[in-house]
Structures are given as structure tokens and as C-alpha cells.
């Protein structure tokens, strides 16, 4: 058998195999497994509910979230908080605003913070990690040098506790919703970068890369059309999990006094942080936004964990 036919045979074998195990079918299979997972269904339902609330919430709100409609009543009460009643389902907050309306309006801001922050962390982190992984796989001294520089930078970011990193960013940018988004997003950069780089390095040693290389496929093509797409699944899982942490972290930043001060756009984290002052007198004011945050975070975490299981190659049948 000549070397030529040998090569063609292997090519045929490879293409045949790629029909059963291309990226697309991995995702199709993962999706099928996701649909049969109870965790994923619950998570997806919670997320769907949350997104729906974020979209229609502000229109559903019976009163203005900003106007201190019952201000006089609250001040007359002198420290006794007005609990749930027919016109105010969640009661009134310390300035006489309708807590239920604020909760509904707040959903949108909370979703916005989570999504924008995670998108930022994902994009920058994936770019850095992808650059590092690609440089290392393409090899050469320059590649290794690039990887070292990028990774040192990432290590530096990792050496700081996340909250501190966020606080430093917030100190420069001042107090606003954008600040919280950027601060929370920056914290996620090293996570995504390390994850993508690690996955790319692991994929780099696999058989299909060796096969492609043996067939003479250009290194650059291997990296971008084979290694990179195959390395994305852990990063996407992480993004789902990060949506949960982003919302929680945003709440922590608000508690530290770095959240959005604008009363017209309440956000669950800010609401939770502001209600801490009256926690012993009116714990329910903290419980509503906290429950919103916890349930949403649970939804994202459940879906993320289910995705991790569905995409885990070890568990594939």
C-alpha cells in the first residue's frame, strides 16, 4: 500500500468520524441530555421567569418606584414599618415607596448588571485566554513569551481577592451602575482566561489534533477551527455560573456603598444593601430582594451545573 492511499484512508476515516463527533453533534447531544435533566429544567424555568419579569416588570409595577407616595404616613409612624397590605403587597420602604413596585422595576437592573458584567468578563477573559492558549499552541519562543506575559498579568489579578479588585475599580470610576458592572466584570476576567487557556492546552494534546497535524493541516487552522471550538464548552458553562456570582457580587458591592445611588432605578442588590440599616425593625424589606437574588442565582447555578454534566466528555455514553 502506498503512502498516498494510506493517507487517503486515514482522511476518509477522519471525515467519517467527524460526522459522528463534530462540534455540532456534541452540542445536539448535550442539549438532548439537558432536556432530560430535572436540574436543567428547573434552572431554565427560573431563568425564564426572571427574564420575563425583567422585561415586563417595569410595566406591571402598580406605582412609581421612585415617588415617595406614602412618605407622610411612614414619617407619622415613626420607625414602625408598614407591612404588606391590599394596596402595597410588599409594604412600604423607609421613604414611603411601594416595595412591590421597586421589586418589579429592580428585576431589569439586576439582570442588566449580571449580563453586562458577565459579557465583559467573558469577552476580555476569553480574548486573553485564547491569545495565550493560541500563542502557546502555535509554539515558538515568541508564543511562549506572550503566554508568560499574559499569564503573569492574570496571576496578578488572581492574587487579589475579588471584592478588593472590584472595590479598587469602583474607587476610580465613582459610584454608578456602570461601575458595578465593570467592577464585577473585571473580577471574572482571570477566571475565563485561565479556563480557556487550560482547555486549549488540554485539547492540544488530544488525538484529533495529532491526526490533523499529521495530515499537514496548518497549525493556525488547527488552533482556530479545531482546538478553539472544542475548548469553548467549559467556558460557556462557567459563564452561566458567573451570571449567578455576578448578581451576588453586585449586591456585595452595593452593601459596601459602591452601588448605584439613583433612586429611580432600583436594583435588588442596592435594595438589599439599603434595607440592612432597618434590618432588625423591618427584616422583610431585606428578605424580598434577597429572595429575588437567591432564587435567580440558584436558577443560573442549576442550569450551569446541569450543562457541565451534559457537556462532560467522561459522562458521555
Amino acid at each position, binding site marked *: 500500500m502506498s503512502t498516498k492511499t494510506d493517507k487517503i484512508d486515514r482522511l476518509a476515516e477522519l471525515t467519517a468520524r467527524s460526522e459522528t463527533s463534530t462540534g455540532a453533534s456534541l452540542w445536539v447531544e448535550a442539549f438532548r441530555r439537558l432536556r432530560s435533566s430535572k436540574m436543567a429544567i428547573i434552572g431554565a424555568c427560573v431563568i425564564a421567569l426572571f427574564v420575563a419579569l425583567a422585561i415586563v416588570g417595569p410595566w406591571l409595577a402598580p406605582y412609581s418606584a421612585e415617588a415617595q407616595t406614602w412618605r407622610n404616613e411612614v414619617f407619622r409612624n415613626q420607625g414602625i414599618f408598614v407591612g404588606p397590605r391590599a394596596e402595597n403587597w410588599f409594604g412600604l420602604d423607609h421613604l414611603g415607596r411601594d416595595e412591590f413596585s421597586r421589586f418589579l422595576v429592580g428585576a431589569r437592573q439586576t439582570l442588566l448588571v449580571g449580563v453586562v458584567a458577565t459579557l465583559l468578563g467573558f469577552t476580555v477573559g476569553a480574548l486573553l485566554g485564547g491569545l495565550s492558549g493560541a500563542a502557546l499552541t502555535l509554539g515558538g519562543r515568541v508564543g511562549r513569551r506572550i503566554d508568560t506575559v499574559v499569564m*503573569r498579568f492574570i496571576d496578578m489579578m488572581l*492574587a487579589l481577592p475579588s471584592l478588593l479588585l472590584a472595590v479598587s475599580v469602583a*474607587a*476610580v470610576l465613582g459610584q454608578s451602575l456602570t461601575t458595578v458592572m465593570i467592577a464585577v466584570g473585571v473580577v471574572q476576567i482571570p477566571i475565563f482566561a485561565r479556563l480557556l487557556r487550560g482547555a486549549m492546552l488540554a485539547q492540544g494534546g488530544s488525538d484529533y489534533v495529532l491526526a490533523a497535524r499529521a495530515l499537514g493541516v496548518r497549525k493556525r487552522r488547527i488552533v482556530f477551527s479545531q482546538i478553539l471550538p472544542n475548548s469553548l464548552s467549559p467556558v460557556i458553562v462557567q459563564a452561566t455560573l458567573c451570571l449567578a456570582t455576578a448578581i451576588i457580587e453586585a449586591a456585595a458591592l452595593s452593601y*459596601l456603598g459602591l452601588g448605584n445611588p439613583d433612586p429611580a432605578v432600583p436594583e435588588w442588590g442596592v435594595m438589599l444593601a439599603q434595607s440592612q440599616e432597618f*434590618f*432588625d425593625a423591618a427584616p422583610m424589606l431585606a428578605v424580598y430582594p434577597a429572595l429575588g437574588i*437567591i432564587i435567580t442565582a440558584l436558577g443560573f447555578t442549576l442550569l450551569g451545573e446541569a450543562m457541565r454534566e451534559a457537556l462532560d466528555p467522561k459522562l458521555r455514553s
Partner: protein
Amino acid sequence: MLRLVIRRLLQLIPTLFGLSVLLFLWLNKLPGGPAAAMLGERATPEAKARVEAALGLDQPLWVQYGRFLGRLVKGDLGTSSQTGQPVLDELVLRFPATVELGLSAILIAIVVGIPLGYFAARRRGSWLDVTAVSGSLLGICIPVFFLAFLLRMVFSVHLGWFPAFGRQSTGINATEVTGFFVLDGILTGEFDAAWDAINHLVLPALALSSIPLAIIVRMTRASVLEVLGEDYVRTAESKGLSNSVVRVRHVLRNALLPVVTAIGLLTGGLLSGAVLTESVFSFGGIGSFLKTAIDARDYPVLVGFIMFIAMTYVVINLIVDLAYSVIDPRVRVH
């Protein structure tokens, strides 16, 4: 081993150097520059100019950076604008409280988390397993400071079981030796002081342990499940080894390796959590100090804190790596 320690400590230098550059740039980027940051927003231009000249802020950037770095190397982290004391002294004074809190939290997480994760894996699908898994999910998703407030309200305001704030009751007249109040009480034989300090630690440590506990339970469970399916466990069982030997020597020992790494990685999160928990309970550690520093825009404290923490973090990771090579002889330390 020694070579590893030296090499890792040398690796600290570029990291700290890079951090110092970033921090320096950060200080310069603060609204109004460092002088305004020190004097507050209402400073007159003359006062600003005077401070800038005194601090050498009218010099070129690289000269300023050189001075900044020189001070850092000498351990001079500046003066806190809140207390007027050197930042390093303030940090060192408060560090024991945070270490005490952090260690208690990790201790709770390990003592509860590893057995819980182990039994959840052994009885997969049982009510214990379901409780452990859902509990750990909840632990990750609940904001730490909210949990802290909740614990304080229930166990201290309503039930009165534990003190609501501080590290020590006012009536206690304890001798301070190390700054670790529990240890001090035991060392000096003042057991009532030690007991008092423990009582003050319970609630903050519980709140702080929520995330590490959740992570340890999940990691242990996943890791034990994986090891239980390994061939060497089946071999050990078929050899007729007693259950306890298989459990300890084959399952637990191998399953705990990733857990040890995870515990090392938890340190950063623990410090973030400490900032939140300490300020809820007015626990006098570096965490609550940082919270007040943020409120007061006390930038020298923030810079000092960041350098201090970065160093601590690297040292802790080094210790974890060393511990790892002791536990797992397969890990070759380079």
C-alpha cells in the same frame, strides 16, 4: 523542598512589582489625584498645591513612582487618613482578629464539609445526599452579608444565644499576649475570656463558612464518587481488606487531594467574605477596617491592604502546594 520555597518566593517579586505599578497608576487615576484624595473634595487649590509639592507630586511620574516603590520596600505603606497611624501598624494590629475568624470558618467548613460530602457520596440519592447537595447550592447563592444579618437577628437579637457584635464582652478583663483572643485566654489560663471570645466568634464564623462549606461539600462528594468507581478500590475490597481500611486509606486519602487544592484557593474568597461579615458584626479585624476605609475614602489603607493581602495570598498558596506534595507523593515539586 527548600529550592521550591526560594523559587516561589522569588516569583513573588515580579507579581508584587506589577501590582505596585498598577496601584501607583490607580492612585494617580483617582478622582482629582492623590492630593485631593487625601485632603477631601473641599480642599482649596492652594492647599492642594502645598500638599502636592510636599509629596513631590509635581515631579515627573517615574520619579514619583520611584519614591512610592522605595517607601513600599521599606514597609512604609503611608498613614491612614482616618486614624493618623501608619497603615502597616493598623493592619498588623487587626490581622490576628481576621486570621482567627478565617481559621474558625475554614475549620467549621472542613469539620462539617468533608464528612458530609463523604456520606453524601456513599449514600448517593438518599435524603442526606439531597440535603447536602441542595444545601451547598443554597450556600453558594446566598449573599454572605445577608446571611450574617439573618444569623445575627435570629440567634442574637431574638434568641440572645450569642453576642451581636465585637470580639469581647466589655466586662471581660483579658490579658493580651498574641492578639488571638481565644489563644490568649488559653495561654494565660483565663478560660472565661477564651469562652467569651469563642462565643463572639460563632456567628461571624458560621456566616463566613457558608461558601467554603458549600464548596468543600460539593468537591468532597464529587471526588469520593469518582474514587469509589476506581479499580484500586474494587481491588482493595476484593482482597478482603476491612471496610475501615479501604475507606481511610484508599478512598478518603485519594479523594481529599482535590479538596486540599480547593481549600487553598478559597483564601481569596474568604478575605472578601471577611470584609462583609466583619462589618456586619463590627468584628475588629482588617475586614471591617477596610469597610470603614472605603466609606472614608482612606486610600493609603486600601493600597496597603491590597499589597498586604496579595503577599498573604501568595504565601498561603505556597503552603498549600507544599502540603500537597507531602500528602501526594506522586506530585513532583519542580
